[in-house]
Structure formats: structure tokens, C-alpha cells
């Protein structure tokens, strides 16, 4: 066979350009994969949208003090949606690729591990932005919600921050939980955590003791940061919420790193 005689007409790209290309292809295909996996894309986009239509739009005329409930709930469901995309996209996706041996095949190639993680994280951010954009469109079209351009930009910015933060939790879950139980376990963490931190029903309408539990949850601090954009946050300082979210992210990354190295040693 003449396979060896094949020449390579294009000059070899520089390492930097090639690395950039690996990152972009890895990200593109990770995103395409998630988009085409209907069980993921339909449910992560569908659930927050459906809930917001049911509970948010229904409250289009409701006002409590100076708070427009439909707008308040837009903040909550934006967080609910982006957290779901990060936890399911990375937690469940990575767990199953680990279990199936697919990640092992990629690790045997010269693919930089950072490209793989970047692709997962970037796709979570992309899904977060899609979900939040759809929610904003519905809220402004049917919920009587008005957003200033600054609020809109800040919401998208907070979506990026939140997606990255919860991507770290997805990573840790992927390393800890068995693939065949991943969806169930992620739901068991995600749904109660969302409810308890007021992503579904504004926290101010919840029993008092529950309001005391919420600040222990990272989801609560993300939602308060989101609500702060509208001036709807609680009386805790903004810095507290930022510190809590950043601290949570670093704890997740640190635990992931430890777990990964423990696994490496046992491999």
C-alpha cells in the first residue's frame, strides 16, 4: 500500500495555532454533542422554561413591596437553568465518558487535558447563556418584565460566572459518583438545593426556618447575586455572596483535584 507516500501539503502549524485549534474543535464538538443529545438539551432547556412559563408568567401582575414577582422569578429560574446545564452537562456527561473508557482513549492521545475540561466548561456556559436568553425573551414578551440594557448585560455576565462556578461542582460529582446512577444523584442534589435556596419560589415566601438554611447553599448566593442586578437581593452584603460563591468554587476544584489524584494513584 502507498500510504507512506502520501505527502502533507499543508505546512505544519505552529504549536500555538494547533493548540488553539484543538481547543476550538473540542469545544465545538462537545457543544454539538450536547445539542444533539435530546435527553440533555430538551430537559435542561425545557424544564426552566416550562417552570417559568407556569409560575413566572402567572405572576406577571403580582407585586410585593417594590418587587415585581415575575422579574424576581426570572432571576431564580435563570440560576435554576444555568446550574442544571452545568451539573448535568459536566456531572453526568463526564461520569459516563469516564466509565465508558472514552476519556481513557482521549488521554492516550496527545490531546491536552485542559482542552477537554475547557470544552466541557465552555459548553456549560453556552447552554447557560441559551437558557437565560430564552427566559429573558419570554419574560419580556409575556411576563411584563422590562430589563434595562445594563441589567441584560449583567445577567448574561452573571450567567457566565455561575456556569463556571457550578461546572466545578459538576466536575467533582463526575469524579465521585458512578455513571449509571449519575442522573439520579445529580437530581437528588440539584432539585432540593434549588428549592431550598428559593430558585423556584421566592425565598421571602418560604417558612422562616428555611430562610435560615438557604445561606448555607451555594445556589442561594448565586441567586442573590443575580437578584442584586435588579436591586432585589436580601440584606446580606454583596461581598458575602461573592466570597461564598468563589469559596465554593475553589473548594469544589480542590476536592476534584484531590479525588483525581487519588484515582490516578489507584489506577
Amino acid at each position, binding site marked *: *500500500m502507498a*500510504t*507512506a507516500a*502520501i505527502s*502533507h501539503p499543508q505546512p*505544519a502549524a505552529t504549536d500555538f495555532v*494547533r493548540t488553539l*485549534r*484543538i481547543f476550538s*474543535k*473540542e469545544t465545538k*464538538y462537545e457543544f*454539538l*454533542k450536547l445539542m*444533539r*443529545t435530546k435527553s440533555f438539551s430538551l430537559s435542561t432547556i425545557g424544564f426552566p422554561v416550562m417552570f417559568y412559563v407556569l409560575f413566572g408568567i402567572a405572576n406577571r401582575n403580582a407585586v410585593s413591596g417594590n418587587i415585581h414577582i415575575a422579574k424576581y422569578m426570572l432571576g431564580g429560574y435563570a440560576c435554576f437553568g444555568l446550574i442544571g446545564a452545568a451539573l448535568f452537562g459536566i456531572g453526568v456527561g463526564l461520569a*459516563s*465518558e469516564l*466509565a*465508558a*473508557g*472514552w476519556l*481513557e*482513549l482521549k*488521554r*492516550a*492521545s*496527545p*490531546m*491536552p487535558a485542559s482542552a477537554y475540561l475547557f470544552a466541557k466548561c465552555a459548553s456549560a456556559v453556552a447552554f447557560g447563556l441559551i437558557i437565560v436568553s430564552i427566559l429573558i425573551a419570554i419574560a419580556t414578551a409575556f411576563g411584563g418584565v422590562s430589563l434595562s440594557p445594563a441589567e441584560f448585560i449583567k445577567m448574561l455576565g452573571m450567567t457566565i460566572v455561575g456556569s463556571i462556578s457550578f461546572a466545578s461542582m459538576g466536575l467533582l460529582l463526575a469524579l465521585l459518583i458512578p455513571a449509571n446512577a449519575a442522573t439520579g444523584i445529580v437530581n437528588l442534589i440539584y432539585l432540593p438545593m434549588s428549592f431550598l435556596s428559593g430558585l423556584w419560589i421566592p425565598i421571602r415566601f418560604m417558612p422562616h426556618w428555611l430562610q435560615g438554611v438557604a445561606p448555607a447553599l451555594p445556589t442561594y448566593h448565586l441567586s442573590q447575586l443575580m437578584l442584586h442586578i435588579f436591586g432585589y437581593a436580601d440584606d446580606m452584603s454583596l461581598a458575602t455572596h461573592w466570597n461564598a460563591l468563589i469559596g465554593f468554587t475553589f473548594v469544589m476544584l480542590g476536592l476534584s483535584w484531590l479525588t483525581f489524584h487519588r484515582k*490516578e*494513584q*489507584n*489506577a
Partner: protein
Amino acid sequence: MPLSAIAYETESAAEDAPATTQRQSFATLTNITKRYGATVALNGLSLALHPGEIVALLGPNGAGKSTAIKILLGLVAPTSGITRVFGSDPRTTATRARVGAMLQVARVTEALRVREHIDLFRSYYPHPLPTAEITRIAQLQGIEDRAFGQLSGGQKQRVLFALAICGNPDLIFLDEPTVGMDIEARRSLWQQIRSLSAQGKTVLLTTHYIEEADALAHRVIVINKGRVISEGTPAEIKRNGGGRTIRCHTNLSREFLLTLPNVSSVEFFEGAVVVTTSDAETILREMLLRDDTLSDLEVASPALEDAFLALTRNS
């Protein structure tokens, strides 16, 4: 009996065997031990892979074949021992760029198309083969736009083979490459593996189709319980594992045949006698001399499988 076919394939593999005098190695494992808790997966395993050769790693389940490959790929760290691939640590990017692997993968990203999988893996390597070339070698023409999840078992294996050769590697590891393929697809993959070897590339494959090792390999390494128990050409392995068999209709008695030198067993199947011996010529001469009614004569080399079973049983 597919014995004749096997014999033919063996010869053709032996013909283009590289000169074994070239002693520099692409990869070596030196005295590798790997323990998982109390279980010992590899126990002082050493092996070397030379340019252009096809080496088959044979062994029963749990013998340590996959572990050996994972250590060579730098995916698993040995408990002790030295791994060298192209003279360096297998985990370096420069080494990985020259290595291709086909592992036993339970599930691949099913939502991506064949073309997309290849496009992605090509991007990992500094000097990948052209896409058309990969598609041709792995025989994926016509299914490039199918999602991986829609492919048959054999087609999936061919895609994994395509990913292994994407980067135009010099050293290729194939873990059970032809599982799920029909005989025609298997033979054409063998042909592609031979042509890789003809280009000077080294192929290490594990398989439990022993005829595959027989047909393809220049060298067979039989491992059991984590150590090498036999190593050589398929013909040498067969010789170590027992003699040839003579099958015929004869009126000579079992008792008489057993008294002949170098006869290890005499069995009757459907009226024919099967004599196993390490010295078939002498025994045949004797038998023909004593029985002129002897008919339906066949002499066969044992399948590598029998030799393999004999070797692993004894170890």
C-alpha cells in the same frame, strides 16, 4: 477445517517479517510489576517492540494484556519497573503524538458523526494523515456522515481503528481490534495492519481470536498471570505447545500406536484415528509400512489455539 487457510495466512505473514537483527526498540517494558491492592496484574513482565513488527499478546482473560497496553500508553502507572516508549516516558506529548491506540471502549460519543470524530482526533496530532486516507484505510467510505450510535458493531470497531491511525503513528496498540467484525471485515483489517507494518510501523495487538495472531503476527507473546510464559513466531509457539496430528482410517490398534516413539496421544473420532506426535514423519512411515489399507490420510499442525491452551494450562 480452516487449517489450510490458517497455514496460508501464517506463511504470508512470515514472508514480510522484518529482519529480527534490528535490535533498537520502539518500546520496552522492563521487569514491570503492577499490583492492585492484593491482586497482582503483572508480575515482572518484560517485553520489547521493534520497528515494523506485528506482535500479538495472547493470554486468557485476566492475564494482564490490557494492563500491559495501558502501561505502555502511560494510562496506568506500574508499581515497579521501567517503561520506555521512543526512548522516553510514555506520558509525554511528544511520545503520544507518535502513538495510536484502539482500546476496548464501552461507549463512544454516539451523537457525533464518523467524519466529526475523525476531524477531532486529527486535530490532536501534529502530522495527521489526510482524512480521505484515513477513511480509505479504515474502510469508512459511505458512512462518514452517520452518527456513531447508528453504526453496526463492526463499523464501530473500524471507526476506533480510524482514530488509532489518525495521527500517522509509528507505534499502534490494538486491544481486541476485530471484536464484532464478520470474517470478511476482519480479513480486510488484517490486510491494513500488514500494510502498516510494511511501512515500518509497529503494531501490538491483543486478541482472543487465536487465528488472528496466527495469521498476522511476526511474533507471539503468550502471557499468563502477569508474566511471559512463551515467546516466538506462531510456528515456534505451536511446536512448544505440542506436536502435529495424523488423522486416518487404519486397522492398527490403539495399543500398538501408543508404543511408537514420540506419540503423545491416540484418539478415535468417528471411526478415524487421530495420533498426536512431535515426529510425524517417522510415525507415518511406520504406519504406512504396517498397514497398506491405511486411507483418508491428513496431517495437520495444531491450531495455535491448542498450543496456547497447552501452554497456559502448564504454566
